[in-house]
């Protein structure tokens, strides 16, 4: 490939790729997995969502206006926040605002550091940088928040008795919930730590692959990928800690009592 940009894909190329999904459908039939409908639905959803996003991005790139970029960013963060809460089995009143607030706060902070302090984009609102950076941070932070929150809420429900035993033995609020908080943050941040450990050996990160495909020299692409990893690690840690601490703040009162009455089981 030359440095003049990637080979353009035609509609026919996409159709050939789509034919590959028939392989999955065939497997489903052969093994009577009954997943044909699910596979078709997921594949269709993926195509429609990505085409729509492509169109929206083209439009925002065309505007290249700070408000349009921030607006799209907020929308993406709110959707990510909603997604992280939607996966929770246990809910409490105010869980959505917590998810949204933490998601917007942590991802915007980390992305701002990248735009102003690391990549030094000028002007900062160039959508080509701001949107993909934010998107990658959001995707990973979402996982951290979802996992951390799930652990802390399940823990409050199932381990209430153990927390109470520590309380009756004279533990402060902090002493009683410290183990649960630690464990939840560990669960939330483990995937990104694993991803960093295997990066480049087992997996070639998607962004780096994309840059290489579009003609960027590999070493440049790697440098970007390193920055991205640190950004998403920071975003995930901030988001996970925020979600765990925020949930505990709302669900454990000043005297250390678990307000399990505020937790509702949505079922799976």
């Amino acid at each position, binding site marked *: 490939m030359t440095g003049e940009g990637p080979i353009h894909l035609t509609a026919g190329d996409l159709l050939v790729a789509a034919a590959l999904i028939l392989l999955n459908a065939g497997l489903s039939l052969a093994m009577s997995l009954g997943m044909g409908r699910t596979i078709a639905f997921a594949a269709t959803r993926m195509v429609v969502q990505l085409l729509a996003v492509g169109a929206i991005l083209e439009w925002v790139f065309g505007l290249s206006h700070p408000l349009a970029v921030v607006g799209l960013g907020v929308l993406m963060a709110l959707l990510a926040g909603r997604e992280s809460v939607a996966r929770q089995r246990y809910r409490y009143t105010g869980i959505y605002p917590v998810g949204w607030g933490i998601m917007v706060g942590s991802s915007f902070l980390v992305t701002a550091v990248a735009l102003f302090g690391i990549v030094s984009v000028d002007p900062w609102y160039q959508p080509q940088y701001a949107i993909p950076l934010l998107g990658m941070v959001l995707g990973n932070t979402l996982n951290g928040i979802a996992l951390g929150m799930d652990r802390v809420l399940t823990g409050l429900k199932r*381990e*209430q*008795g*153990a927390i*109470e*035993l*520590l*309380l*009756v*033995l*004279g*533990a*402060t*609020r902090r*002493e009683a919930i410290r*183990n649960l908080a630690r464990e939840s943050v560990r669960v939330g941040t483990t995937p990104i730590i694993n991803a960093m450990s295997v990066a480049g050996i087992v997996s070639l990160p998607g962004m780096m692959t994309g840059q290489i495909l579009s003609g960027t020299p590999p070493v440049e692409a790697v440098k970007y990928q390193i920055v991205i990893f640190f950004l998403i690690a920071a975003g995930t840690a901030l988001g996970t800690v925020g979600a765990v601490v925020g949930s505990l703040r709302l669900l454990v009162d*000043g*005297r*250390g*009592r678990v307000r399990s009455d505020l937790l509702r089981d949505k079922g799976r």
Partner: protein
Amino acid sequence: MLRALADLDRASGGELLLEGRTVREMSAPAYRSRVAYLPATPQLGSAPVKGLLEQVAAFQHRRRCSDPRTGLERLGLPESILERSADELSSGETVRVALALLLSGDAEVLLLDEPTGTLDPRSARAVEERIQERAREDTSILWVSHDPDQAGRIGDALLTLEGACLNGPLREPRLFPDTIRRLDPEATIQSWGAQDDG
């Protein structure tokens, strides 16, 4: 009711006093160190028992009066229990570990919810003896029991709970068993102690 006395549930009405002071004005750990509560089915978490003991010993408000390890032994638990994971213990072992932790503090009031409910007669006897000994050391004890004979054997004042109505105290131990048998055996609180607090 014991949960509300232990400050674990918000009371639906009324006020909690300890020696004339509102509990709301005291810090929760300070209050709970003085008024300790043993749930009927305590949960110890999933760490090894040894880790739990160390965790509790490190609490900033903990005023320890004895080593919980000696307590374990006196309640008939072998030393090897320290190495076991707390969630692998039987319910009887769990209650006794929790009780040993409770007794190793210097609480002035112990709220016990059927401490011998899950124990075989021999362990139950060891628990009764240990708690009676504690009562002689000026600790007030509120013991919930469904066992009429146990109440007569160790109690010195009987409170009975019928619906939402607390009756008593009755101070004639020989009358306890019959009083309890007359009532629904599911609804009995019995207490004894050196002081009446809370």
